[in-house]
């Protein structure tokens, strides 16, 4: 129990470092925020100075950092210059879109890569093993935006089976009332499977695009880990005791092989978060990545800052969860 608490506490220094980093990044970004605020070139230096004071930019860096922390504590992520809206609100309305897409793709990648890696390891040299190798090498070589465009061209333009790649739902359909924020689930809650089906068709291509990206490292790692475990001494003992192949593979090998894979899921998830920006751009997905990107182009830095903070926060959280998960499976971690 104390180890769980210790593990949670140990992520605090990193979290603090992340806060400093996201704070500093807006300080080194080119240009003076006050000048951007004073978008009217006719404004005098005095006016700019007033805005600077209003924004707290005349204070020392340390003071500003404390103000930043205080604001964060109250859920204030700053204000977007281009829309004038609080960034926190904007992020909150867009986060479910990104989360739905990322989680969908993540689950898809896990569902394909882990069985593939296991079977490849069980039959080295077989066609499944070859397939696993090809996918692992091709998958990491596919730039997400090229994969996305290729899928759009094939399934939307040529075959016409996919809907137009513009966002989460056909523009002529009504969004179900928000409960979870995930349209796939909200549609079902609303008793409207048609909406869920429409949303599913929308999410399929971007989901596959992101999944292909994550699939390769996961399949590769599963295969390697499984091979490693299968050649270990306790598997030999299990064979020598005459246990069934099914028992050896599932109870003895698979659970042990999953330990390093589970701990690496955090890293994979992080890669996917990074790829999110590109995929959202390609599929006009109204998520936080696309939002941060648009803000960056219009030199609006508060959303970028918030975006980076959210990304790092999610990464730390996912890593914490996977560590705890691995700890529950592995008695040696001493968490259970």
């Amino acid at each position, binding site marked *: 129990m104390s180890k769980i608490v210790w593990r949670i506490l140990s992520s605090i220094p990193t979290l603090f470092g992340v806060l400093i980093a996201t704070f500093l990044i807006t300080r080194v970004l080119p240009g003076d925020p006050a000048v951007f605020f004073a978008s009217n070139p006719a404004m005098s230096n005095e006016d700019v100075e007033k805005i600077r004071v209003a924004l707290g930019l005349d204070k020392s860096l340390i003071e500003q950092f404390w103000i930043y922390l205080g604001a964060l504590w109250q859920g204030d992520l700053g204000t977007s210059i281009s829309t004038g809206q609080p960034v926190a609100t904007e992020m909150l309305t867009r986060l479910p879109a990104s989360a739905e897409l990322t989680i969908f793709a993540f689950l898809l990648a896990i569902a394909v890569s882990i069985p593939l890696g296991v079977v490849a390891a069980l039959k080295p040299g077989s066609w499944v093993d070859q397939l696993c190798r090809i996918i692992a090498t091709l998958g990491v070589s596919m730039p997400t*935006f090229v994969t996305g465009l290729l899928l759009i061209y094939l399934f939307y333009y040529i075959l016409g089976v996919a809907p137009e790649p513009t966002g989460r739902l056909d523009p002529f359909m009504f969004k179900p009332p928000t409960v979870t924020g995930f349209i796939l689930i909200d549609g079902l809650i609303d008793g409207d499977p048609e909406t869920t089906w429409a949303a599913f068709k929308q999410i399929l291509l971007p989901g596959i695009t992101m999944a292909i990206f994550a699939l390769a490292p996961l399949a590769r790692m599963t295969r390697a880990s499984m091979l490693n475990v299968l050649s270990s001494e306790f598997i030999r003992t299990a064979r020598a005791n005459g246990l069934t192949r099914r028992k050896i593979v599932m109870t003895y090998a698979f659970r042990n092989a999953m330990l390093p894979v589970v701990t690496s899921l955090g890293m994979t998830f992080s890669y996917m*978060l990074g790829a999110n920006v590109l995929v959202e751009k390609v599929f006009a997905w109204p998520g936080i990545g696309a939002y941060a990107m648009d803000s960056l182009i219009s030199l609006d830095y508060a959303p970028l800052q918030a975006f980076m903070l959210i990304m*790092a926060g999610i990464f730390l959280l996912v890593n914490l969860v996977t560590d705890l998960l691995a700890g529950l499976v592995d008695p040696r971690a001493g968490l259970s």
Partner: protein
Amino acid sequence: MAATHSSTGRLATLRYILSENRLHQVAFLLFALLILAAILGPLLAPHDPLATNPDDALMPPSATYWFGTDQLGRDVFSRVLVATRLDMLIAFGAVGLSCVAGSLIGAVLGYFGGVLDTVSSRFVDVLMAFPLFVLAMAMVAALGNTVMNVIYATAIINLPFYVRLARAEVNVRRHMGYVEAARVGGSGHGRILLVFLLPNILSPLVIQASVNLGWAVLNAAGLSFLGMGVRPPTPEWGILVAEGARFIASGQWWIFLFPGLALMLAVFTFNLLGDALRDILDPRART
């Protein structure tokens, strides 16, 4: 004499491994092609990659325009070919920088340990907490939208891998017999690091570097796809794909597909090369 002998021995091993594994041959062949295209690209291009020709706009692939033309009538093949040099420069520049800087930093940290090591490890943790692509985006935004800054940003996001690798490798070796012997023999820290430790960790660094080349190309192309770093009309694979993306809905597939394939091929080559090098340099990892 002994040196010649050992180098021919190594060459023989290399030839043996290459003859044994077709895929390795492919990797080295593709790599050579890529380098040739980067060096000779502008000489080989059949058309001026920047010359517009409105009469021939949006032509599908043909004998004149192998990969077709874009909306301004520019030859897609020439643009894809000429772009190789820029993409390779970014990749090699970034990976070279982070490999040299990262392994030196990592080696020093691993060798001396102590407070500096702890602090740096924390720093690396923080760096790794951000999705690397997002970090690169933010850094290019912060440093300014230039090719050099794309190289720096890509170098920085790849830094942690080299720091960690070199640190770990040096850490396990610093108390080994030959290092202790060098110390007793009066070698200074600098000499031990440069002469005795770094050459021994070269293999894993080279393997890491070749895999990283793939990431670096992906990263740079991703950034320019989003409109960061390289600016049009400079031919660069990411930009070419971004430009071509606008014409998918009207069926002009060749504008996005060919630069996309070139990009894939480059990354694929670096990944294959990484596997091949791992096989050749690290016999333990052979499967």
